[in-house]
């Protein structure tokens, strides 16, 4: 936690006070957070920050910040990670991963190097594979079911600070 606070402080030394006993209400804007070296290269950085921020717009208070790294730490259990992964991949925050979310994910993953047909093909494939209840999009149950079987989800879905 101390290290985290150090990092948090270091991002905006003039805004963040060193001592939190008086509970100041300080938030950092998204721009600062996504420029952290740990997140800088991540294609989903905006989504990560957004889904952890309390107001949904990407500014993080220190509590949210700690929250983020505790979920992304190695110690966090699979279910918790799955919940937040779901949130991260759910771009339009409608509690379902639908086709447009998938397309966005894919574009971010490949830097838009696939053609449109390939993208639609992959999206259809994903939905066909993972959609258990046949509603054409992935609810959290579908997502959790799928992710719980993925071999390297735990090893890849964490950030070290």
């Amino acid at each position: 936690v101390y290290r985290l606070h150090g990092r948090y402080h270091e991002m905006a030394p003039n805004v963040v006070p060193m001592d939190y006993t008086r509970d100041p209400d300080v938030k950092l804007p998204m721009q600062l957070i996504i420029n952290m070296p740990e997140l800088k290269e991540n294609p989903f950085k905006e989504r990560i920050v957004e889904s952890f921020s309390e107001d949904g717009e990407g500014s993080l208070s220190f509590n949210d910040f700690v929250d983020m790294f505790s979920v992304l730490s190695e110690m966090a259990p699979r279910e918790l990670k799955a919940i937040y992964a779901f949130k991260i991949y759910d771009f339009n925050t409608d509690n379902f991963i639908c086709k447009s979310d998938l397309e966005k994910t894919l574009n971010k993953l490949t830097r838009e190097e696939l053609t449109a047909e390939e993208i639609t093909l992959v999206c259809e494939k994903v939905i066909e594979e993972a959609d258990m209840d046949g509603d054409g999009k992935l609810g959290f149950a579908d997502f959790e079911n799928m992710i719980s079987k993925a071999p390297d989800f735990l090893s890849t879905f964490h950030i070290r600070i």
Partner: protein
Amino acid sequence: KDKEDDENKEDDSCSQQNRASKRKSYQRKNSDRKKAGEEGSRQRERGKKTPTKDQKESENKGRKTNKKGKEGENKQKKDRKNSTTSAFSHSSDEESLSEEELAMLMEQVEQKKKLISTMRNKPWRMVKKLSVLREAQAFVEKFEGALGKGKGKKLYAYKMMMAKKWVKFKRDFDNFKTQCIPWEMKIKEVESHFGSSVASYFIFLRWMYGVNLVLFGLIFGLVIIPEVLMGMPYGSMPRKTVPRAEQETAMDFSVLWDFEGYIKYSALFYGYYNNQRTIGWLKYRLPMAYFMVGISVFGYSLMVVIRSMARNANESTADGDDDNFIFSWKMFTSWDYLIGNPETADNKFASITTSFKESIVDEQESNKDENIHLRRFLRVLANVLIICCLCGSGYLIYFVVKRSQTFSKMQNVGWYERNEVEIVMSLLGMFCPPLFETIAALENYHPRIGLKWQLGRIFALFLGNLYTFLLALMDDVNEKLAEEDVVKNITRWTLLGHYNSSVGNGSAATPPPLDPADVPRGPCWETTVGIEFVRLTVSDILVTYITILVGDFIRACFVRFVNYCWCWDLEAGFPSYAEFDISGNVLGLVFNQGMIWMGSFYAPGLVGINVLRLLTSMYFQCWAVMSSNVPHERVFKASKSNNFYMGLLLLILFLSLLPVAYTIMSLPPSFDCGPFSGKKRMYEVIQETIELDFPLFVAKIFSYVANPGLIIPAILLMILAIYYLNAVAEAYQRANAELKKKMQMQREEEKNKRNNKASTNPVLQDLEDLLTPSMKSESQPKQREDKKIESPNKISPDGKQGKPAAVDGSPMTSGRGAAFTPPPHVFVTQPPTLGVRPPYPGQPRPRGHPMGPVPGRGRGQPGY
């Protein structure tokens, strides 16, 4: 559940505020300054009642509020109780609680404790977590004391305090332990730059280091140190002295570098040890210890490798290897969140793209396979070429080793001639793998399979080289054995003559005037073999380091600094930066370890050299990777291939066990050096120990056990047991596969069922669509009838036909505009539906449906 819901409803904001304020007053003594702010923020958050939170969270919240509600109730009760009892006596108000209340309280405290411990796993906001945690802690603190009654209270509190201290200590200790794991930070750093697959190599390296450290401890503690401390000192015996002819040059660096001279006659090699049965005042049985350590090195390594293999296998089977979710996994888990380096990120992007393309191609081409003959031909050709390469390299090594034997007989040969074998082997190891890679390009395998083939081939190359080397050495050894016989006779004669003279003098006890350096001695083939292995290891280390230095570091420097004044982009173009070649490095490590295992029996110091090597290579390679490498473009998973490496290690361990076992069992040890000198075979040391040091009946039992009549049935029994276990495992596997299939079927069935439902849904929806506009248009009824006629056809289709309909039809519930068109091959009367649409393009779509973002499940059912 019901209760929860009730609570949820009942818990409106007003009562919450009430309770919160009450609680505040209760917990004032425990609450710090932050508390107020937290409480406030919590209320703020609850006031929002966040629409973005998903279902589970709200459920949790419900549970929480439920708990809180109970707690509040209880507090009220307690409050009342307190107020009533306080009239009688204030001191005994804890005891005045009735039994069941106490039990309830206990339960609640337990519950709270559980909550505290599982807090970390709840998907709540940090603010909420903090506040709930504080509350729970305060609650526990407050009522824990109440549980212990009267007199026991202090003790109880003390106990609790100790428990807390203990927990804290344990946590500190855990931290300490993680800090003690060697190179953890270094590996993590590499991992964060290069992703987990490169880190897996370093973890493997670390594991190897651990194993070698244990072996080193074993050999050093049980063989070398006793020998140095308690054995006869240097120069006291012929075998511990440098011969007269070599004494002038024995300290020269070039001689020492070849492990001749003083090093050859040191405790690092087999020949130095004496065949005295016990040494020193401890009566330490050194030959016995030497033998047992040699065996236990193999035993321990086997055990460790197999154990870690089993653990890996457990993990991999626990993960499940069904390939139902190829695309989904690629989509959601391919990004390694650890990556923090732009170059790595670029590579990762590229690799993800290619992997997607690959799997798309796989998907498209899974059924069609063209020109199979050409491919087959090419593959056969490639294999033939590779076998040629392997044979050629094997022959080359054999040839070189033979030549080196003739060189060794000649005097004053140059540096190259002396080190020819090592140089040739290292060069082969350097140039053959790229050659194989180019040949493998002919084969056109899937990259992952190709990688396995490649690894297997390189491994075969190394192994072949090692074994030809061994065979050539065997030849050498046989020659030396013949030579030895001659020398033995000479020595006996000289010694005999010497004894005769001393007996003639009448003083048998006087030390022989013959200097130990002058005694003629045999070639001591064990030491020779040991020296060969040590040399090979050292040259391997040097070649590896030089390759890293030149191939990676110099290249990286060149690319980086010359890039400013060069005609093309060096970083992106031809030389670029070196990739970190995981597979090659791992194979090198495995091969090296094989040599260590083989050689450690003849050169106990070899393990020490290897420990040093691993230690330095850890730092050196870490530095090289961080400074001058870019990650491999083709990423392959660490988790899967780990066991592959372990399998290779096991294989090489077994193969290196073979020659050692052969020499132990069936070659006579040299007569004048080493701990087993004077015996016919090395294993006789055990028989000797048993006969001399154990009581008689043990020897008898041992002789019975060693009887072939008993050994053969035992082996048979073992084979039978293996066969049985194998059969059982197979049966389990089959059952597993069956279950998996069943599950798959069930899933499919469920899907189909749903799909059928869904396939009816579009029909209904179409009808609905048609119905609503039909108020206005005249042409609709007819088409409605059409639809109605069609609908039975649509509901009936069997699974195969229904599935595509559903796949395409299901988006209809979510994506509105585009999904309106059903697939043409099911709906025969497609055109009319399409024809209907144009007249109402701008109209808001079905009116009966809610426009909310959750149109999904069970929408069709209630509609009709």
